[in-house]
């Protein structure tokens, strides 16, 4: 199977408080990491090509710091890495158009994307990309199985239920977290990846999109919780008392 993995470098916010400067998230103040969903994307591509043969092309749209996620993909076993240079916070429609312009020039069976990015959380690029390529799409995919007709995929829907679809190839799938167990990058892989070439591509001109980011802002502080402050031991005693009284604990 010829698989293209669309992956993204994102600010590694973890449990930190997000800083907003001049009405925009201060992306540059955070270290970067591979988008969480995309860890599963690379693993699924590795799993499928190990089972059925083929190649993996890792593709990202982003700034120069985004190159790290391509190195990681190469270290894991991707055959090729392609970098589309552009601003990290580019509008999803423009990102999808740029990715589509690269992908439609190559032979591919599957394009895999993450269900969403941890920064924008839009779950947009995969579906847009499929429509631009004119191929089937399935989102929230939690299982992929190669069949004669293409792939059998399971989608996660509301209430913990699943839908199964027969999908002909080529197709685009956006993968949900938990679909597999991502492997760690080996030291040998990292050494090999350091010497591999990343193909840099300048995105084709794409039309302007009509969605304009006006501002980022912290949500208004809602006085919901009564905040307990002071000595942690004293707070724990107070909370234990609440658990006994309100939780019916003897």
């Amino acid at each position: 199977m010829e698989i293209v993995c669309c992956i993204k470098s994102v600010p590694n916010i973890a449990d930190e408080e997000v800083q907003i400067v001049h009405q925009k998230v201060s992306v540059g103040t955070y270290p970067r990491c591979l988008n969480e969903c995309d860890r599963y994307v690379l693993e699924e591509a590795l799993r499928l090509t190990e089972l059925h043969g083929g190649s993996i092309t890792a593709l990202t749209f982003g700034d120069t710091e985004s190159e790290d996620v391509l190195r990681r993909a190469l270290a894991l076993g991707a055959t090729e890495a392609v970098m589309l240079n552009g601003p990290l916070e580019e509008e999803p429609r423009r990102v999808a158009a740029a990715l589509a312009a690269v992908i439609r020039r190559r032979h591919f069976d599957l394009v895999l994307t993450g269900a969403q990015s941890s920064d924008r959380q839009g779950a947009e690029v995969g579906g847009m990309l499929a429509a631009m390529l004119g191929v089937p799409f399935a989102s929230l995919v939690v299982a992929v199985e190669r069949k004669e007709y293409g792939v059998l995929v399971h989608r996660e829907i509301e209430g913990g239920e699943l839908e199964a679809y027969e999908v002909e190839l080529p197709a685009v799938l956006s993968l949900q977290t938990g679909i597999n167990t991502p492997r760690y990058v080996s030291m040998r892989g990292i050494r090999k990846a350091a010497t591999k070439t990343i193909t840099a591509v300048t995105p084709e001109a794409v039309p302007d999109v009509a969605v304009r980011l006006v501002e980022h802002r912290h949500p208004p502080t809602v006085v919901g919780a009564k905040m307990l402050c002071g000595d942690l031991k004293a707070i724990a005693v107070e909370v234990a008392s609440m658990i006994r009284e309100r939780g019916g604990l003897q």
Partner: protein
Amino acid sequence: MNQVFVLLRQVQHDIDELGLSLLAFATGIADEVVAVVLWHDDRLECPVARLRGYCHEAWIMRGEGLFHPDALALGAALSGVVPPHPVFLMHHDSLAMDTGPGVSVILDVPFVSNIVSLESDSDRKTRLVKKEYGGQVDAVYEVSQSLGCFITVSGAFQGSVGKVLAQAPRVVEKVVRVVNSRRCWLRNEQADLSGDVDLAKVERLLAVGRGMQEPEQIALAEETALAMAGAVCCSRPVVDAGRLGKARQVGISGTSVSPKIYLACGLSGSFQHMAGLRGAPFIIAVNKNPRAPIFERADIGVVADGAEFLRELISALNDKSAAVSSKQPS
């Protein structure tokens, strides 16, 4: 706005409730509201009756390719019947995530997903707010109404209900022939949620999130849950990391629970997780980040490291003298 289309779907033999609430909102922002219903049953009495008061016109969309449609089929169906640059609202569910982005490309309109609020202004601009960065940031986007837009709306959407329309909607049946590029051969298979504990029956739950998912932290949570005579549950990332089983996951794609006490540690409180909390539990939230969304919903908040707090809480819960004194009348 002049005209707003609201996309609804059939659930069992009824119209989805969240879609109806979107229609109710749309009547307050648009001169004309059109309900576009993906309907499979032969009989139309249900949608016709349910839509009364909610819209000016109801399009009942039918056709084989619209059964669990993909974006290509739905986009083809809609592009044949809507005017240029339509404004669409759709509840942000699994169907919207599957079709919305692709349909927006096919209809050539902007797309904004999972919004929590919407404002129109006199300059014919619409401002849409969505949650980003794990709910820590409100991102405000602006679109021009003249270009149309496909908007998916979060279950956490805050919008006032518009007017109830006196006249019954004009019902138009639209049978479309489109090809669905996928075949849905099985649906509603329940994911395996069986496990060692039935969370729905537990009265005191200790929920752990991404900030408490290391093995030693989970062991600490288990020890605390034992002292609480309760059980440990979690948010999705903990299951994805393989630290707890799917049966322990609370949220939209996990189990729904209705405990008396919900102690959440290292858990941000995403909408997807909190949607699994039913009833009116007393929520105690512990998080290092004072801006964590969980504090909006909690009754009691503590800004602290979850593991450090639980160590103190175990001591406090195991202090029998404190247990006795807490029962003394004050």
